[in-house]
């Protein structure tokens, strides 16, 4: 991916392949839709976990909140299916962002392990809370409305909807990371005290980073609730032990703190996991557990992190040969 032309070609072929996928493998539409879900999970977790150095174990909260908020809009707005879904998705994302803004101003004052442990309680507490609140169906959950189209159309529709969300997440993050936002959260990761000593508005950036993460997770939650069709507070919405852990693992597997790492990690993880389910039935959870251990022990830096450590020059870290000073600097 060196020249802009090659890069454009690469992105174009990924998009074409993604668009054609439901036609090429119609039996796997739902699994492929979940691949996009996994990619958004890993990418959004990595904003804080990788780029900013704040390991969050509670991001699943935003996913569940988005899911519920959307379902409530769909249930109570009185709109037709599609308008209700779209309004619900936007509402879900906004409510998730609201949660991140409020929680962030309190929790992001915690550093390092304290933040990690603090967030651990979030998903669990939310699950408990949701199972006790009648307005959102309490322990018996919520049904999302039936998809109005013909048989099979539902899977295709949600595949493309999830692809659209993933296809929006990636370039937005790419743009953010390439600019001041990315540099600032990287600086917070490397030395937050120094960043403060340099006058950087650390709290503002940290909260904004968490809100960005929450936005994409809320949106994804809204869609996944409809893909599954039934929202259970602990097994579908606030699934800390599965999705909540996977999003971390995928980012670490691919290489946290990189743009492509979480994408690669999500693809590898999701495909491996599907294979386990197909070929190791009965043992799939054991195999998954082993995979997790292998990831953490042998790939602590992830696939991309490992490559970067091995070939730093390929990633642009080298002494420049030209010693000529630039013009205009004083």
């Amino acid at each position, binding site marked *: 991916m060196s020249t802009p032309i090659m890069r454009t070609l690469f992105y174009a072929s990924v998009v074409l392949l993604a668009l054609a996928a439901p036609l090429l493998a119609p039996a796997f539409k739902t699994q492929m839709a979940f691949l996009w879900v996994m990619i958004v999970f890993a990418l959004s977790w990595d904003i804080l976990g990788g780029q900013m150095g704040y390991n969050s174990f509670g991001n699943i909260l935003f996913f569940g909140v988005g899911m519920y908020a959307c379902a409530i809009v769909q249930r109570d707005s009185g709109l037709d299916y599609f308008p209700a879904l779209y309004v619900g998705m936007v509402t879900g994302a906004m409510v998730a962002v609201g949660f991140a803004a409020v929680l962030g101003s309190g929790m992001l004052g915690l550093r390092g392990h304290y933040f990690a442990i603090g967030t651990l309680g979030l998903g669990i507490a939310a699950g408990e809370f949701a199972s006790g609140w009648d307005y959102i169906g309490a322990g018996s959950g919520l049904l999302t409305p039936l998809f109005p189209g013909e048989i099979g159309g539902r899977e295709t529709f949600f595949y493309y909807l999830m692809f659209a969300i993933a296809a929006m997440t990636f370039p937005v993050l790419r743009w953010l990371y390439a*600019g001041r936002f990315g540099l600032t959260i*990287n600086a917070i990761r490397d030395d937050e005290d120094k960043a403060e*000593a*340099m006058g950087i*508005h650390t709290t503002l950036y940290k909260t904004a980073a968490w809100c960005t993460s929450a936005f994409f997770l809320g949106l994804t939650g809204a869609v996944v609730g409809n893909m599954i069709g039934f929202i259970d507070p602990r097994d579908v919405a606030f699934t800390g032990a599965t999705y909540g852990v996977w999003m971390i693992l995928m980012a670490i597997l691919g290489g946290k703190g990189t743009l492509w790492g979480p994408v690669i990690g999500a693809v590898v993880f999701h495909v491996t996991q599907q294979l386990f389910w197909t070929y190791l039935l009965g043992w799939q959870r054991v195999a998954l557990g082993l995979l997790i251990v292998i990831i953490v022990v042998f790939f602590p830096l992830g696939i991309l992190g490992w490559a970067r450590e091995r070939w730093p020059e390929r990633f642009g870290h080298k002494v420049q040969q030209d010693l000529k000073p630039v013009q205009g600097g004083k």
Partner: protein
Amino acid sequence: MGILEVKGVRKTFGGVIANSDISLSVPEGKIIGLIGPNGSGKTTLFNSIVGYHPIDGGSIRFLAREISRLRVPQIARLGLIRTFQQTRIYGKMSCLQNMQISVPQTLQRWGLVMNKIPAEDTERAEGLLEFVGLYAKRHLFAGDLSFGQQKLLEFAMALMIRPRMLLLDEPTAGINPTLINALISRLRRVSTELGITLLVIEHNMRVIMDLAEYIYCLAHGELLAEGKPETIQNDQRVVDAYLGAH
């Protein structure tokens, strides 16, 4: 009145009195020295000035404004920037990125909207890296630089912010002796050409006597002596304090 006025500052850690009744005044545009044996409370005084910890008594005024209750980033945004004795840089970012992010933060509330790094920032960053002799290393991880190079990078980052005043904690530590003269002349240029006021902690007597126009000497957390370099150099108490400390 000076740009920085420290009056009767006191700071204790448990039973240790790190600073007791310290007063000093730094006139705008000057280079002032702060010396004293190890553990005499110099870094503690810097920490108190930049709001790193609350002080137990006294007052600190910068640009005629009381700053002793402000937080670290707020003081930094007033244009009072410090460098660290044990360097602090962003290790997993390139030198150039370390510079690009070290810009004045006063207008950066809009930084989220204006995500793009302006070309003139990059140009100025490269110019300053050239100024401290790190231009060729601009794409290396800052964490891979030597201690001395990190000191120089941190100094360049501080300049990038266009501060009114710099607090430098041992700027020549770890710098190759043959390069020290070049560093002294750079510090002078920072003062004369950029008009930045400097308060410098330094253990190298030759450097500080050469550089500073006025010197404060601490010992055991107290202000022991102050005066022009010649006076300090010949002050028996200062000589004793240094000899006694070794």
